[in-house]
Every structure is written in structure tokens, then in C-alpha cells.
């Protein structure tokens, strides 16, 4: 019997597995590991016990994401999520001919996103620069390899083997589902921090920061995506990235309710509430990735600006 007989149900299976991996990664994994469900007292939803179904060890991700990224959101030089150490995502990052490849690197990061997230902690760029020693990575490296082995064994050996003669098909199906999840997660996450109008900050600006300024920085440093319930669910409610950054420990499904008040507050005080459709935000991010591959057109107009809204400057 030729393989083609299996193709139609195969496609359905890949779609189902992709959806399940996306939900596990975004609505369950990301949010549980933020401690959002610790209050339930259920060990399987506890942030210290849960590990997600991708190659990045949860333990390491909690440090780089929950602590570093969520505390130092959008502070250049501190928040390593800005460009993931690979891309130029802000015009205050100094241009270098290497960044001519920005769109290519972004495309590759999207395809291999879970691997990018797993390698994130190793700070490879700092090792290249010589500011970080190889030895510092030994332990992290071991953790990553152990997780990578488990994930690869399951997705690319054991499950394909269980399906016997369909080994190659199952292998390809699992790879496809991981790819779909990578592409989706990358896009949702990049729409959360890199569309036009999102602000970045310097370390000096945030020295001895007040709690109030911290909230202000979280507001200006994130962006939302508008859409229906399905979009919110499939993005783990990170379509409400602003609310997530203000209150990272509140169960994510509550963000749509919070958003109403947050938005009112922003309107009242004239603070930009960066939101738009998925299409608009995606286009804006893509434009930024391409534009920042080239040197800045001209120096920033106001040197003392607290926030760089680079797009306007460049568009001018």
C-alpha cells in the first residue's frame, strides 16, 4: 500500500499535534512555569515541577525569562530577549556589517525557535565577544543536552518506531508539528515586544527605578495583538503581552478582563497602549527586522528621549 493512502489523515494528525504542542507550550507551559497556577496546590501545575515539551530545560528558561526578561524588560544590555543575542531589534544597538543578515537570522530563528530559546542561556554571543567564559556554560550545557536527548528520542525515534513501517512519516509529522509550533511561537512573541512604537530603555534610565516606573516600563515595552478568543487561547494569552508584563503571576486567561481597565488607564494618562491585529503587528515587526539590518538613517532627533520609537525616525 503506497504511503499516499495515509497522507490525508497524516495531515490531520500533524495539524492536531501542532495545535496540542502550541497549547502545551503557550497556554500551559509558559503560564504554569510563571507560577500562575501555584496557588492551586496541584503538583502537576506547579512552577517548580512542571517542565514543558520542548528542548529548552524549564529550569533554565525560568531564570532567563521569569527573572531576567520580566525584571529588566526592554533595558538594552540587560534584557537578552532583545534580539536574542542574534538580531538587531533596536536602533540603539550599534550597527555592524554582520547585521546585514538580520532578515536571514530572524528567519532561521523562527524555524529553529525552540532551539534558539534553549541556547539563549548559553550567551554564545558573549563568548564570541570574550566577555563570558566557556566554563560558565558547562552545567547549562549538560542540562540542555539531557533535555534535547529526551525530546529527540521521543519525537524522532520512539514514536516513529511505534508506528513501524510508517517510521519516516511519523518522523516527518513530528518534525512538522514542532516546526509549526516554532513558527507560531516566534511570531506571537515577536509581536509582543518588537512592533513599531514599543520603547526600549537604557540602564541609566532605570537605575534606582521606582515600582511605578517599573510598571510604566512594562507598559511601554510590550505590545498586544487584537483578535478573537481562539487567537488569545492559541497564543497562551500572550496576545495580552502588556497585561502579562504588568502582572506576570496572574492566570493568563484573566488578561482579557484586565485589559479593559489597563486600556482605560492608558487613555486617562495618555500613555500609548500598543495594540493591533496580528497582520499589522507582524508587518511592523518584519519591517523593523529588515530596516535595522541597515545602519540608522540619521541620529536620534531628541538625544534625551526616554523611549526610542525608532520607526518614526526611520520613516522620516
Amino acid at each position, binding site marked *: 500500500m503506497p504511503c499516499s493512502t495515509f497522507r490525508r489523515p497524516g495531515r490531520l494528525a500533524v495539524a492536531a499535534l501542532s495545535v496540542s504542542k502550541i497549547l502545551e507550550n503557550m497556554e500551559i507551559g509558559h503560564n504554569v512555569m*510563571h*507560577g500562575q497556577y*501555584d*496557588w*492551586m*496546590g*496541584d503538583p*502537576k501545575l506547579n*512552577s*517548580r515541577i512542571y*517542565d*514543558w*515539551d520542548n528542548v529548552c530545560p*524549564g529550569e533554565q528558561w*525560568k*531564570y532567563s525569562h*521569569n*527573572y531576567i526578561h*520580566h*525584571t529588566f524588560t526592554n533595558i538594552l544590555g540587560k534584557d537578552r530577549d532583545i534580539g536574542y543575542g542574534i538580531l538587531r531589534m533596536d536602533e540603539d544597538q550599534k550597527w555592524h556589517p554582520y547585521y546585514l543578515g538580520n532578515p536571514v537570522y530572524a528567519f532561521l530563528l523562527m524555524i529553529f525557535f525552540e532551539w534558539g530559546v534553549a541556547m539563549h542561556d548559553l550567551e554564545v554571543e558573549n563568548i564570541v565577544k570574550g566577555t563570558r567564559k566557556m566554563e560558565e556554560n558547562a552545567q547549562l550545557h549538560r542540562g540542555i543536552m539531557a*533535555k534535547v536527548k*529526551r*525530546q529527540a*528520542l*521521543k519525537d524522532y525515534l*520512539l*514514536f516513529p518506531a*511505534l508506528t513501524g513501517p510508517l517510521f519516516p512519516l511519523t518522523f516527518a509529522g513530528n518534525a512538522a508539528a514542532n516546526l509549526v509550533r516554532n513558527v507560531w511561537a516566534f511570531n506571537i512573541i515577536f509581536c509582543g515586544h518588537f512592533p513599531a512604537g514599543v520603547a526600549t530603555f537604557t540602564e541609566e534610565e532605570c537605575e534606582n527605578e521606582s*515600582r511605578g516606573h*517599573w510598571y510604566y516600563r512594562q507598559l511601554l515595552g510590550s505590545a498586544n495583538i487584537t483578535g478573537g478568543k481562539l487567537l488569545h487561547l492559541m497564543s497562551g494569552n500572550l496576545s495580552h503581552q502588556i497585561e502579562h508584563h504588568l502582572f*506576570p*503571576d496572574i492566570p493568563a486567561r484573566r488578561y482579557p478582563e484586565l485589559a479593559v481597565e489597563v486600556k482605560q488607564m492608558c487613555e486617562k494618562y495618555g500613555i500609548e497602549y500598543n495594540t493591533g491585529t496580528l497582520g499589522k503587528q507582524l508587518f511592523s515587526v518584519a519591517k523593523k527586522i529588515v530596516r535595522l539590518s541597515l545602519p540608522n538613517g540619521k541620529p536620534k532627533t531628541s538625544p534625551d528621549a526616554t523611549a526610542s520609537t525608532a520607526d518614526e525616525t526611520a520613516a522620516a
Partner: protein
Amino acid sequence: MTLTTKLLGSKTLAALTAPHGVDRYLEMFNPMWAATEVRARVVDIRRENPEATGSAPVATLTLQPTSTWRGHRAGQYVQVGVDIPGTARRFTRCFSISSAASLPGERITLTIRANDEGQVSKFLVSEAKVGQMLHLSQADGDFTLHESAATPTNNHLVMISGGSGITPVMAQIRTLLRDGYDGRANRKITFLHFARSEADQIFADELAQIAEADNHIDVHLRYGDQTFSEFELRRLVPDFRNTDTWACGPGGLIDLVRDAYGEENPRLRVEFFKPPTIAAGNAEGEVSFTRAGETAENTGATLLEQAEALGLKPEFGCRMGICFSCVKTKTDGTVRNVLTGEESSLPDEEVRICVSAPVGSCSVDL
């Protein structure tokens, strides 16, 4: 080990179900299937003190654990996790096992008093139904007998209990009787129990039978205002200080027993229930970091700051309550979340020490 348990515990299956584990999938098919976790189904509920007036209702729940249950020794306790309807929250509390020592997979019973403040005990006694699933830990605790049919000694034993402190002691007596302890053993047990009233006495029929039977177990029941006195114990057991003794009950009873036996008497083993500590004020009392063995006066600062002031170096991240790097278990006392003002007195609660300040005395596993 059966083929199923071998299969469920296999590395291959663990690899297939990574990273969530075999149990996450098994429970979807049948809650009684488990590879490593322990769960139990309530198979019988019996009210122990239907006539009680003065004290809260007591019920004995018979539990059928999953095959992962490793059994218990008499006198041990188990942590019971209950998903209380309407809260989406799982509460975990410790209860002594009241049945005789069990083997792996065997049924056990818990005899529980419905405390007024105790959400878990109230639920288990009044609302749990036959068929209800509970989460269990393996049995734990050192309040156990070294005496058994297999390892008999000629020692005279003393058991002292008060209120629902009778449950682990009852497990011990039941174990000895089940395993062949009788009048010919020529070993005496003096069992002294204090209850609020005759109507509140649980296990009354069984205790009457034990008292009557030819087994060298003397049962002495005391009701109402009668409290433990050294004088009375000396009358029953003249050499009680040199007699192996197990005592379980409320803190007040245990204090009296301890006084009678003298400080650090190795013959006395105790287990007692602590009344829940309720907030006593803002910055009073003492803060203990139990793992480090450090205690200091509560300054009112956050637990993280107080630990650091003592020279401890607990793990932390954001120091503002968002990253969960600093979560530790508060074993006792009340803490206030400095961001929300919310106070909480639950025992064995996980708290973010960077945003939790002790209210009164407080212990943290740190």
C-alpha cells in the same frame, strides 16, 4: 512485581511520556492507575460518634490506595490532598492512619475529626462520598512501635492519648492484636485515653472488647474534666519513667506528660497537634529559618530581608514577587503579602519570601 508495574515503571514508557510522566496519561483512563503517584478511592465512610454533643463529628474513611502504595507501619501518618469543589484548589493535610499496619496496595483507614476551621477535615467528614478520589503521599513518621509479633519484647508498654490523638495509638494496638498479641504473650499494655465525654468517645465498642478480652491490655478511659496526672499514672504503672511510652494528643496533654517523664526521657515518644497560629500583631514574635537553624526576633521586614540580615543566602531573583525564584515553604505561622496586604496562615504553604513578611512568629523551611 507484576508485568504491568514493570511496564509502567519502564524507562521506555517514561521516555515516551516525557516530559509529563506516565501518571499524567494513566489518570486520564482510570484514576486508580498510577505508576509512581499514590491516590486512593474512598470505599467506606462511617460516623464514629453519632451521639456526640460536645465535640465535632468524627468519621472513619476506608481508603483503597493505588498499587503504588508501599504500606505503612502503625503510628505513621499520610498526607492527604483533596480537590475541594468550588475552589479549584488542592488542600493537603496530614492525618494519622487508624488501621493496623498495611502491606503494599492494602486498604487503610483514616479517622478524622471535622475541625471548625479545618476545610479539609470538614470536607472529608461531612461531604466526601464513597467513590471520591484523594491524593496521598506515602506513609511517614517515627511514632512507630518497635514491638511486633515478629520482634516481640517483654517490655511493659504505655499508651497515652487524648481526643483524636487516639488514632495512631489505635493503629498500634490493632496491629499488635491482629498479629497475634494475646494473654499468653505475658506483656502488659496500659492504655490511658482522655475524651471529652462518653458520647464523644470514638472506637468505644472496640475499646470495650479489647478491655474485656484476655490480652493483657488494660484500657482506662477518662472523661470530661479529668486530666492527665502523674500521680494517677504512677498508680497504674509505678515505674512509668522506665517504661516505653507512646503519647499522642493535644499540646496541653503532651506538656503534662512530658513534665511527668522528665526532660529528654528516651522512653517517651510523642506526637501532638499544634493549634493553628493566628496572627498576633505586626512585628512581634520570632522568625525561624529551620533548615539553617537560625532564629531571630521578627523585625517586620520581608522573610528574604530577615534571612539575609541573619547572614543566610537564600536564592532570589526579581525581589518584587514576579519571578518565583525565591519560593520556600512556610511551615508555621502567618505571613502578609506586602504587595496585596493579604494574610495567610495555612500550614506548609509555599510563599515568595521576597514579598512575604511574617506577622507574629513564623517558621520557614530555609
